[in-house]
Structure formats: C-alpha cells, structure tokens
C-alpha cells in the first residue's frame, strides 16, 4: 500500500506501460523464435527514435488541450527542404543543417500556434488546414523531384548507422541517444519547471488558468513552437535515416504520433500525461508493429487488423487501471476526510 501511496497518477501510468511492454516481450518471445535479441533492440530503438521525438512534441500540444495534425507534413517538408539544401551545399556544417531543420519546423509550428492562440481557431481545424498547406508547399517547392541519397553528404548517410556505444551486437545509435536526450530534457521541463506545470494547468482548466493570470496564449504558442521544433528535428532524422525523400515523406505520421501519445497515457483532452509516457507509448506501438511483422504465422494482411485491436486494448487496460487507482484515492480520501 505504501508503494502506491507515493505513486502519482502519471507514475502509475508509466508503470502500467512498462508492464504492458514487458508483457508484449514475453508473449512474443514465446511465439517467435529467436525474438529477444540485440537486433530487436536495434530495430525498435532506431525507429522509435523518430516517433518518440515527434510524439513528445505532440505531447506538448496535447497537454494544452490542443492537437497538431500537421506534424507529418512538417516532418516531410523539413526533411525535403534540408535534404535539398544539403544536396546543393554539401559542405554545410552538420550543426547548421540541424538548426535549419529545427528552425523551419519551429516556424511552421509558430504559424499553427499563432492561428490557434491568437486567432482563436480550434487547433484541429488549424492543423487540418496546415497539414494540407504544408504538404502543398512541399510539392510546389520540390517540383516533384526527389532528394537522392547520392547527392547527400557522407556524414549524413553515415549518421543513422553511427554507434555511440556498442555491446557486442547491441548498438546505441547516435540518433537514439539524441532521442533519449530529448525525452529526458522534456521530462524535466514538464515535471520540474513552472513553465511545464503551467502547461498542465492550462490544459486542465483553461478558464481557471486565465483567471489565475497565466499568459495562456503565449503558453499555447510556445507549445506549438516546441512541437514544430521537434517535428523539424524529426524531419532531420527522417532525412538521415531514409535518404530518398519524396513528397509523400511523413504522411501518416500525424496519426501515428497521436496514437503514441494516447497509448502513452497522455489525456487527449489535456492536463495530464508525461514525456516519458509518450516515449513509452511510441515504444509499445513500435514493438507491437515490429513483432507482428516478424511473426511468421501472421500474414502480411492480418497485421493491421491486429495492430488496431492491440492499440485499443492497451489504451483500455490503462484506463481500467487508472479507474481502479482513482477509486483507491477516493477510499483513502474517505478515510482521511475533514477532521475536527
């Protein structure tokens, strides 16, 4: 009981997710031969690196009771834009390339943010619109040409396979480390800074936040800026990993990031959730996808049907456990109700 006493809701959520992930690992290792190996870690970590960064950006926005459906287009645009620049100016400094990606992403996020916060248009409408607009921008800008791997500088092509540390076959890639840094950074910001706490407050009760004198509009704008920046960073990672960038780059990432966020226990109506949770959500989904692909008995065509169902079940599990938890709080409250 004492253990649970110290558990705040988001901690519990994270715990539940960890248990679910462990469960997935156990179940699949019993049906797939040679499942639990270094390769699995390498694969999942490398592809989660992108989705987790994006999902954390999405988390910032969702916490404030908004949503950003344009992230897929931002990823696509920045990937193309930076790729295009790099193929023209191959000697560009790597840092500059990253800044460029983050900068372009931030700009696009900023447009979303201004429209949502200052023009007071519901975020779903704004970002549905900019999802189309940014994609159009990409098509117009690219003129239907592809960014080709051959034209990209060497360092970029080597980046996805660059290992920071390796234990035998287990590789800790640079991109993965980058993602881990982002997760930790944002976890700290959300948990321990008053900026982060105010984001929660705004999402939890915008009206009260206004009454309390928070600069709601600026905060929401900031959330979108951060989301854009992280989407830009994802765009850069996308470019590094996939090399060939066409106009379809990043399509569907918006829904994937939303899925990661909700599976990660971030309340879609704002106010609760954590960066670490979003990361775990991304891991869980990727792990499921990866495992289903590797499962010989599952045909290519069954995979999506199962994936949908499994996502649903994991979200439901989380919600059931949270409900239990709330009941527990209520009981505890009942025991310690106002004394004389």
């Amino acid at each position, binding site marked *: 009981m004492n253990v649970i006493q110290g558990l705040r809701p988001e901690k519990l959520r994270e715990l539940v997710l960890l248990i679910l992930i462990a469960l997935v690992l156990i179940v699949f290792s019993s049906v797939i031969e040679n499942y639990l190996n270094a390769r699995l870690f390498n694969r999942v970590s490398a592809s989660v690196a992108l989705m987790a960064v994006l999902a954390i950006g999405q988390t910032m926005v969702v916490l404030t009771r908004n949503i950003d459906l344009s992230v897929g287009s931002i990823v696509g645009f920045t990937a193309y834009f930076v790729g295009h620049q790099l193929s023209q100016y191959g000697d560009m400094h790597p840092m500059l390339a990253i800044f460029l990606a983050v900068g372009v992403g931030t700009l696009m996020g900023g447009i979303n943010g201004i429209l949502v916060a200052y023009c007071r248009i519901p975020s779903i409408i704004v970002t549905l619109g900019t999802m189309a607009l940014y994609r159009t921008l990409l098509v117009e800008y690219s003129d239907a040409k592809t960014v080709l791997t051959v034209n990209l500088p060497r360092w970029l092509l080597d980046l996805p396979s660059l290992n920071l540390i390796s234990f035998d076959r287990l590789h800790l890639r640079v991109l993965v480390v980058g993602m881990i840094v982002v997760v930790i950074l944002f976890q700290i910001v959300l948990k321990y800074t008053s900026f982060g*706490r105010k984001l929660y407050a705004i999402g939890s009760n915008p009206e009260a936040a206004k009454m309390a004198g928070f600069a709601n509009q600026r905060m929401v704008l900031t959330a979108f800026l951060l989301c854009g920046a992280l989407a830009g960073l994802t765009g850069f990672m996308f470019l590094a990993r996939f090399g060939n960038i066409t106009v379809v780059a990043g399509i569907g990432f918006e829904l994937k990031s939303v899925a990661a966020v909700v599976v990660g226990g971030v309340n879609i109506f704002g106010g609760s959730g954590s960066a670490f949770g979003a990361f775990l959500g991304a891991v869980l989904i990727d792990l499921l996808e990866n495992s289903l692909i590797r499962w010989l008995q599952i045909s290519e065509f069954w995979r999506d049907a199962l994936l949908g169902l499994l996502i649903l079940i994991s979200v439901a599990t989380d919600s059931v456990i949270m409900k239990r938890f709330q009941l527990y709080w209520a009981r505890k409250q*009942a025991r310690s109700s*106002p004394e004389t």
Partner: protein
Amino acid sequence: MTQALKEMSLELFSGEIHALVGENGAGKSTLIKILTGIHKPDDGEMMFSGNGVQMNSSQEAQALGIAAIYQEPMVFPDLDVAENIFISHRKRGIWVQWEKMYDDAHKILSDLGMILDVRAPASGLTLASQQAVEIAKAISLNVKVLIMDEPTASLSNHEVEQLFKVARKLKQENVAVLFISHRLDEVFEIADRITVLRDGEHISTRSVEEFSREQLIREMVGREVDQFYATRQKKKLGKRVLSVKKLSKEAAFTGIEFDLHQGEVLSFAGLVGSRRTDVGLALFGIQPNDSGVIELDGQKVSIRSPKAAQNLGIAYMTEDRRKLGLAMPLSITSNITLPSLKRYLGRLGLVRTESEKSTAEEFKNRLQIKTPNLAHEVGKLSGGNQQKVMFSKWLNTQPKVFILDEPTRGIDVGAKAEVHNMIRELADQGMAILCISSDLPEVLAMSDRVLVMREGRQMGILDGPQATQESIMSLAMGELQESA
C-alpha cells in the same frame, strides 16, 4: 445589451472586512471581475493605494496584490491539491520543489482547519474541498486585497468558522477583505462595513452597526420581505412513500436507513464531505448503491440509472448547477423541458414547441424568473435565476420524491424565501421532499425531521422539536445520538 453595472463606486480600506450584498444578478460578481482585471469597465477609474490603476489582466491585479476567489471554484482537476495552491505563485521560481510545496500546502491547509491529502489529484475533491483549496490559494498569496465571492456557499458552519478565523487574522495584518454572501447571519457576524447593490447600482455603504437586518433586506430587495425562516408547522404525515434500509455504497456511505412520507420534508445535515450528496446520487441511480433495500410505495425497487429513477417518480436537483445542472448555451425553455421531453413529443418524435413554450411561460411566472425572454441563454442569467430554472426543470417532471441538493446555494434572501415557500407548498401538496443542505437555519426552518450524517454514516434522525442548532452540530461532529 443590458448594463450590468451603473456608476458603481466602492471604497475599500486596509484592515477592514467589507461585505457586498445584493440580490441575484445585482452585479456583485461582475464588479469583482472588473476589480481583478477580467472584465474591463466601459467607464470610470480605479485607485490603488492612492494611485490610479488600469487593470488589463488578472495578472496585473495579482501583481498589485489583489487576489480573488470566484463564485465558481476554479481548480485544476488534473493537478494535485498542493499544486493547485501554488501554481499561480509568481515568486515560485523556475524550478518546482515538490517536497517543499507539499509541506507548505499541508501547513496552509491545517491553518485553515482543513485536512486534505495534498498529493491527491483535485479531480476527486468535493465542491466544498475545492472551495477550501481556493481559499488556501488566495491567502497563501500574501495579498493586500482579498476578494471572496460567496466563499461560504457550500461550506457548513464548521468550515465557515475556520474561514472567519482566517479572515480576522488577515484583517489584523491589515489586509482588506471584500466578502460576498447571501447568508446575512454571516455578514453581520464578520463584516465591518456593508455595501448594498441593487440592479447594478450602488444603494448604500454603511458600517455594520448602522444596519438592522430588516433594513438591509429592504435595501437589497427594494421591498418588504417578511416571514424569514419561520419554523415549519408540524403536520400530520401522509403515507410512506420512500423507505430505505441499510443502504451502502463502497467508499461513500454505509447503513443509511430512513422513511420518507408524503408531505414530509426530511433534511440531510452534516459537515462538508459527510457524503450526503452521495446518498442522493444513489437514490437517483447515478451512483447506484451496492447493498441495502429501497422501497417505493411499499415495493422493493432497484434504481440503476437516472432514467429508472425518473420513471419511478424520483427527481434530483444537483448542487453543482454549472457542471451538472443546466445546459448553459441552451434556452430557458429547452432546459426546463429537458428531463420530461418525452411529454412534448408529438407524432414521429417531433418536439411540440408550442406546448414547450407554454410550460416555460408557466414556470417563469410561478417562480418569477427574471429574464428578457424565454429563448434567452441560461448561461447568461445570474446565479439565482439559473437556480430557479433548474428548479423548474425538475418540478416539471412532477416527481413523487424530490431530492434537493443545496437548493438555495448562491441564492439571495428574497429568492431564498421564495424557494422555501415553494418547498413548503410542494410538501403541502403531498410531495415527499428530501433536502440536503449545509445551511443550518434553513434546515431548521424547513424540515419535519433531520437526518444527520458524518463521514458516510448516519448519526441519527432528529424529530422536529429535537432538532436544534446544537443537537445537529453535536451529531455532525461525532457524538452519537443516545436514543437512536
């Protein structure tokens, strides 16, 4: 466009407790929202410590040292209690020190006499506890001016006492306290000076000694109102309508047992959080009981949903008008007919708007709802008038058993008297009424019998004459009734 406030003037001195009174819709809340920078005045000026100030946001008000507790509690449900108290502290710095925050919050709350788990998410708090958190938040801000809009509306005596202790302490520390309440006893108890508002206009400001109760009411209402809290005449009870035995719900209440007769008013009294509301919710099927027996007209019934309850002739009027009581963007008419919409359906399930309108018209006249027209948005009415709309909504279902949860919460004296009269009338017509109220004088005046609860347990039932302020309080505080 009606004008909410006309040529209002108000002076507030440090070290005074100033009460603001007036009927529902007099403009008290509006005034406060102007004082704290949420609304902007069309005209006029504001001086603070001798300097003219222009307030454009509540942030600026806070910077000046003005804090307010609004009529409807404004907590952040996802944050825990401690954070709710400290979230808007300007000097909190960039980093959050969780442990220190918990300790401080605990201390502030205990100073207020409130024991709340500071780590619990605020979403589980009762309205009263939310109010407590709001108060804790405001006084922790080290303010120069503290404004409280009906802070006691959902508190019971015990908590009110604690609050007043704090208010007096603040007064000693030279804080100016502006206090709004519809409970005149409280006003006379705590205020140094009183300002009366009526229809958005300033009527008078005088020190409390210069007011008599009658005079105050006259100035508020603009006419004579008599028969306040006249004790209810004991009548012969009708046949038993509702009988409840060993009613229990996990994590809420246990062992509730009572009978309710036709024409009887049974009140539920108790401290805040004594789980009276939960009993009401169980009887209305919103949070059905786990065990126990409910008999209606001698028949055992099982109430698993509000719809079932309604079909059985039970109505429940909630204490949380804003969140649970009314559809704010809808018209008065639509709100009134909502629970009984079935009656207004014609062929093919089409709504007969004409008969809807005439019902609404009837209630408007009967309850004297002040509104430009019946198509008016309920959300734009003042609190008291909203309460009347909610009352109409349930009366219109013509219930056998009417459960009223804090029926006069936030209602002004005049309207309160009307509500009391209405409840009596209903009882006299044979309705069985179960009234949950934290307003002790009201409980004493209204009820035939009083059931006292404490922490989810029934402490006893007091018959009319036995019920006094003292006997109820001692039960509510935990002394079991010997005879029960």
